[in-house]
């Protein structure tokens, strides 16, 4: 078997791998990217929600669009992306074996970036091997790539961002989500992600987990039960749901097998058992780098920057850039990465109980426990105001590095300031023109336009489900908890390229429901 030579090999064509390839190829390095999948992009093409962050992190752009952008850029730069290519082994002297079309290729590279990402964790319960118990990633793959419903009635296990986001995507695919359960006492993901589920009426069962998945040949039901502080079931708390699918979203683990095989020094961190890397992704073996989830579980936005930094480091390693150039590039990128690592959900805050926002406001406990901000809690947040006439109401109550709403408004209604994690403040003096850009820009779908008149209120909400309501249609307005609060009539439905598939639906409700009506359900007798 002859050995093939490559200047730079990237393992994994996900956000980190592609970003590194782009960074390096733009300086003239010949990059080969191997990916075991039939399609590149890693998990990006399954991410149909708008990303958080700021403009430089591609905030408010949907994941699959970011994937397309990365691929186009890589292709333009001449990056060779080899698909259906499984890297089987990583050996000393930067040699690797790659399985392509049932043939093993022996490759040697000058520099290697391992960007293999992560795999899903599992939780064991009685019946967990039954067909119908699937990973959350499987659900995303089925519905967003292959366009089939993973199930009709689904229980979601796990309330981290993956569990929350995938639950919402299941609703978008036309599935019914009966409940979300989590053994932890508080919702793990962003409150805004939980709220957009809660207001459709989906219950959250915290301190609950699956007792048994029922069914002979496949899942036909599930029983959950409450757990105590030692995660032991509390007898008599069982609840049953008829479901055909149980979706499990209980975290991710870095896929470090290749790095371990190569003998890279590893360390145990909160992000998992990961390679000991410098911030530029260099490992204990010169010329071998790691970036993205394999180097510690974070978001795709962080993975893209880590990839860029590793790409820059490889440019220096291979002599394409001098040390100063690399350092300056790294500083810029690292600043951007550090911004994403701020706020309540930052890696450094994992496992910490946070009682107050950075502004000193008490966190909504209802949000952590039930997925929505209580009517009695919501007015303490700076984005929530009430006044005559139209104005935005921003129900953003946790410090997350995200600021698209600020730049979406050209009228100065919304201010976050320079500190990305600050809660948005709505200025009661400014003049809202009902453009709706803020509503559509919010990746958390936490912005509403409320037009308070004497005898009625018009509430404009983000809406990403089919069928869209139609003007004149009547139904019920739902509260943040998903319960019916009053009758509602649809007065406007706006779609626009600028809103990027988020429809803006306006409903008319009696004036006194201005601060409570937040979602709409078509009346069952109305066709």
């Amino acid at each position, binding site marked *: 078997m002859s050995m093939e030579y490559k200047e730079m090999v990237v393992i994994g064509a996900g956000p980190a791998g592609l970003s590194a390839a782009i960074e390096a190829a733009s300086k003239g390095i010949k990059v080969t990217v191997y990916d075991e999948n*039939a399609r590149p992009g890693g998990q990006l093409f399954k991410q149909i929600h708008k990303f958080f962050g700021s403009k430089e992190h591609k905030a408010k752009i949907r994941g699959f669009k970011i994937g397309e952008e990365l691929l186009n850029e890589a292709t333009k730069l001449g990056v060779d992306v080899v698909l259906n290519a499984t890297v089987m082994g990583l050996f000393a002297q930067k040699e690797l074996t790659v399985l392509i079309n049932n043939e093993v290729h022996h490759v040697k590279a000058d520099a290697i970036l391992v960007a293999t990402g992560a795999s899903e964790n599992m939780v064991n319960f009685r019946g967990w091997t039954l067909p119908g118990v699937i990973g959350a990633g499987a659900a995303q793959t*089925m519905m967003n790539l292959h366009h089939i419903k993973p199930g009709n009635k689904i229980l979601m296990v796990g309330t981290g961002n993956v569990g929350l986001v995938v639950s919402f995507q299941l609703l*978008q695919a036309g599935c019914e989500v009966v409940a979300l359960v989590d053994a932890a006492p508080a919702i793990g993901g962003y409150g805004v992600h939980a709220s957009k589920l809660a207001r459709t009426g989906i219950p959250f069962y915290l301190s609950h987990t699956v007792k048994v998945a029922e069914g002979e040949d496949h899942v036909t039901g599930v029983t959950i039960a409450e757990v105590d502080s030692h995660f032991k079931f509390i007898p008599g708390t069982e609840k049953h749901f008829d479901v055909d699918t149980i979706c499990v979203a209980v975290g991710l683990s870095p896929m470090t097998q290749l790095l371990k095989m190569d003998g890279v020094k590893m360390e145990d961190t909160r992000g998992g058992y990961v390679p000991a890397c410098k911030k530029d992704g260099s490992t204990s073996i010169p010329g071998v780098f790691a970036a993205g989830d394999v180097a510690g579980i974070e978001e795709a936005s962080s993975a893209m920057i880590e990839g860029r930094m590793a790409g820059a480091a490889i440019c220096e390693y291979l002599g394409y850039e001098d040390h100063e150039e690399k350092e300056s590039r790294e500083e810029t990128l690292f600043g951007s990465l550090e911004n994403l690592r701020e706020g309540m959900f930052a890696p450094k805050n994992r496992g910490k109980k946070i009682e107050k926002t950075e502004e000193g406001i008490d966190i909504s406990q209802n949000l952590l426990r039930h997925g929505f901000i209580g009517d009695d809690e919501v007015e303490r947040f700076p984005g929530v105001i009430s006044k005559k006439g139209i104005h935005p109401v921003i129900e953003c109550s946790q410090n997350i590095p995200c600021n698209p709403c600020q730049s979406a408004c050209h009228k100065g209604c919304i201010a976050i300031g320079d500190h990305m994690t600050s809660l948005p403040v709505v200025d009661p003096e400014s003049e809202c023109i009902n453009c709706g850009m803020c509503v559509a820009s919010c990746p958390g779908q936490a912005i509403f336009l409320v037009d308070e008149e004497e005898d009625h209120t018009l509430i404009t909400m983000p809406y990403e489900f089919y069928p869209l309501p139609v003007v004149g249609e009547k139904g019920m307005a739902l509260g943040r908890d998903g319960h019916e609060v009053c009758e509602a009539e649809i007065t406007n439905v706006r779609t626009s390229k600028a809103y990027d598939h988020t429809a803006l639906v306006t409903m008319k409700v009696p004036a006194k429901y201005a601060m409570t009506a937040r979602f709409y359900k078509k009346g069952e007798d109305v066709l």
Partner: protein
Amino acid sequence: MERIKEHPILGTCEPGKIVHFTCDGKTLEGYEGEPIASALRVNGIMVHRYTSKRHEPRGVFCAIGRCTDCVMIVDGVPNVRTCITPLKEGMKVETQYGVSRKGDVK
């Protein structure tokens, strides 16, 4: 399970080219190039194999070719990951028992 036809974000999901294949002798339809597992799920088939020792049913779990729970006998070859193997006209798919066909198990 159904196919998604209209999606609020992804738009209209164009139907693929219809091909015929068999599962345990029964003729079924699916889209060319979609994962075998997708076509099976659309046809209501959830069980892909039974384990050898305890005869427990298994189906799709990870859907990305990692867990190998969904393997079946495809065109006579056992242990084929149906979640990442594209469907082709005339494919012969069989439920796998252990690593063999039903009845072939000792």
